[in-house]
């Protein structure tokens, strides 16, 4: 369930700009309305996505409930050295979903 699926191209050349695609299973709860007013509760949705490449931050996203269920993000990394791209999804309930992928030439 709490697994992050990541895809990168099969062949990577040094210095190339690589597109990383990540997907996580998450309900991304939508705001409920009762009598025209929003229901007050702690909605469960992914509000932050962070990605690092060999410890350096390459990408960060602040997402809202307007992002679809099972959120998908793609971003790029400049692959200048072999290493690990690590992605963390944070949701509003304090849960984190982590995934990583290795870049090698």
């Amino acid at each position, binding site marked *: 369930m709490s697994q992050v699926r990541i895809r990168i191209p099969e062949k990577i050349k040094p210095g190339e*700009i*690589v*597109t990383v*695609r990540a997907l996580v299973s998450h309900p991304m709860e*939508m*705001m*409920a*309305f009762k009598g025209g*007013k*929003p*229901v*007050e509760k*702690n*909605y469960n949705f992914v*509000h932050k996505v962070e990605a690092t*490449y060999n410890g*350096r*931050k*390459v*990408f*960060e*996203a*602040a*997402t*809202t*409930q*307007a*992002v*679809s*269920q099972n*959120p*998908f*993000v*793609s*971003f*790029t*990394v*400049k692959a200048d050295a072999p290493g690990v791209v690590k992605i963390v999804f944070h949701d*509003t309930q304090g849960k984190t979903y982590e995934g990583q992928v290795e870049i090698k030439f």
Partner: protein
Amino acid sequence: MKSQQDLRSTRRAVLKRLGATGVALGALCWGLVVPGGAAAQGGAGMPLPDEKVADTLKRLFGDRPLQSAGERIKFEAPMIAENGAVVPLRIEVELPMTKDDYVKNVYIISDKNRRPMNAQFSFTPDSGKASVGTNIRLGSTTDVRAIAETSKGVIYEARREVKVTVGGCGG
């Protein structure tokens, strides 16, 4: 005769007063509803459930002008989205990513969603390129804006209209 006139005038006065009270009560209700909505959002910095797109832009960028992006932003969005719950978007910003001048943030803002600010993406020079793809929800047919902000504070905006057949925002 005189007493009748008196009566009439008082009746009128009473009605007027009633009307004024009604308006005041109405105003009070509005005053109460809006902060309640803000509290529903919980976190700090979260916008109200209903925010006009102009207010969103003002909140995010202040009075800085938005320049039309032209060729600088490659923004792929479907012309017709059959399902508003999953609208795939792809944004590529064709600007240099050097240490001194890079694309710091990319925003997705959809004009007619209840809360127009949908997502904010931050990049660093290590990203190589400010490129992002994601799926968003749209409530109805609307303009979607991709807004790129560079580290020097210049803002570029690209816009696409997406026609939505079935809205994806529930209530």
